């Protein structure tokens, strides 16, 4: 039992913590020993990933795009991928090992995940050598291009949240109010009554 006020629970054993605590931080904390190359990652990706994400990470159908989209973040329709958007490589390794392939999570070995992560770096032009080997030794030295573009939450500095603003109650808009957008013109709302998922 615990030494806490209630004495409830029991001490977690080392093997139990190791089984569940698989998270990795941007500085590499938590990485398992292992390694894999771009060349090893390519067939693994073809066998386990390409059916949804495309042979080159371009995304099949509406499934997520994993590669490309560089220099689109300022565009009307940004393409947010590992290469164009994600700040840290640690997230790639962690998430693939944690939750992929979709429907068969935790089925990849640590070396598989290193190889797949190396292949995703290659697909995103972050490494260009098919013999590049990613390991727990060199992992933290790899930086993703968009790392510096994440900022803290500063919503409350936006003008509409300025302190002491009393909202207008009368005569707030001169002239008639015009409709500028209509949902019925787009007409993408599901119809049908009664059944969920209709």
């Amino acid at each position, binding site marked *: 039992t615990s030494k*806490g006020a209630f004495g409830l629970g029991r001490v977690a054993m080392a093997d139990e913590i190791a089984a*569940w605590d698989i*998270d990795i931080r941007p500085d590499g904390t938590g990485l398992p020993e292992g390694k894999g190359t771009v060349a090893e990652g390519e067939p693994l990706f073809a066998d386990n990933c390409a059916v949804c994400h495309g042979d080159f990470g371009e995304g099949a159908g509406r499934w997520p795009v994993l590669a490309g989209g560089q220099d689109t*973040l300022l565009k009307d329709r940004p393409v947010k991928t590992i290469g164009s*958007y994600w700040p840290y490589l640690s997230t790639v390794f962690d998430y693939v090992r944690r939750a992929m392939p979709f429907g068969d999570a935790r089925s990849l070995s640590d070396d598989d995940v290193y190889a797949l992560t190396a292949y995703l770096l290659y697909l995103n032009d972050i490494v260009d050598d098919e013999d590049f080997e990613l390991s727990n030794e060199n992992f933290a030295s790899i930086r993703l291009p968009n790392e510096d573009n994440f900022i803290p939450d500063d919503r409350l500095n936006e*003008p509409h949240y300025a302190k002491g603003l009393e909202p207008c109650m009368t005569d707030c808009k001169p002239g008639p109010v015009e409709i500028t*957008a209509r949902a019925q013109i787009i007409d993408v709302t*599901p119809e049908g009554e009664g059944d*969920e998922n209709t």
Partner: protein
Amino acid sequence: MVDKTDPQATKRAASRRDFLKAGLLGGAAVAASAGVARAAGEPLITEIQDWNRYLGEGVDVAPYGKPSEFEANVVRRNVPWLTSDPVSSINFTPLHELEGIITPNGLCFERHHGGTAVINPADHRLMINGLVDTPLVFTMEDLKRFPRENRVYFLECAANGGMEWRGSQLNGCQFTHGMIHCVVYTGVPLRYLLEEAGVKTNGKWLLAEGADAAAMTRSIPIEKALDDCLVAFKMNGEALRAEQGYPLRLCVPGWEGNMWVKWLRRLEIGDEPWAQREETSKYTDLLADGKARRHTFVMDVKSVITSPSPQAPVTHGKGPLVISGLAWSGSGTIKRVDVTIDGGRSWQPARIDGPSLPKALHRFYLDINWDGSEMLLQSRAIDDQGLVQPTKNELRAARGENSIYHNNGIQTWHVNTDGVVENVEVS
């Protein structure tokens, strides 16, 4: 219910039903006989109805009750084109049909990343590890021996209204605002569990992890974890629904729904955030200058008129009209809700009815006398921190159109002279 052993009773019921069916066979017949009906009285009153003569169902028919069959349209709905797959997807609470502030459990919207995990509570474990004096494992039985709290909180998906950043798209408040629910949670204050393990002084962040196939993870500042977070096992009095994290979920009051980790199995203490997928690739808010906000935890002050709305048109003509809506803020209680019927040229305060609880839904009403002319309805919430709900154009001016998350802009409904309502935007 008809006694099937009595042939006469069965025959009487059948003939009564045939008569009723004939009477319902079309508006023309009803309209033609309306004058007669008025003179003779409404048949629903002057004629004995089935439910007034024959017995209803016994108490042994429905051990766990369901809504009336006449409420079959009050259901969660999804929008298939929004996601690539219904397993990592979203559905929507039918806000337009609900009143008060409590969402019925079966109607609470769902958001899964790996489907609904099905876990026998006897097999569930909660681990606390990391920067603690003693890493611990709890069973559900253990957790139910800690002192409990009951709290009413809204849970709003960070993406609620996200499809509306570029303009009016989905026609109904179920779809534009329905990634939200509000229930009374029963659970253990998270700080009791953390104190049991003993958080070390350098423990500044908490990682919460789910047991589902997505193994959902989020980093939470330790101040929030020790403040008002709950580890909940009941909602609205009964066990969590499977789709809401049965047997255990995290409640992070006022903060974006993604952080309310379901099927909660692990809490790790660390000295820095973990930059997990759901706080880097997702749940970060891209701005017009290419920067992206991260750790946008709080859900801003927000409101919506739930009726009239596109799925709840005005069908009764001119005269008294109840404008009903919801307001909420992740920062506290709602102090005031203003309503306009002319697209924002003039506003009047609405009436908040029912409990006003921090980080919970609030119900507001404005009772008007509709003259049958077109209306542009909007609501504007103000919370107890003095934060005023912005317009969508103010949000776009500050953020651009690609933030996806945290759209709390003022919603406009256009009511036409026939009472039909549409999702619009106005100048």
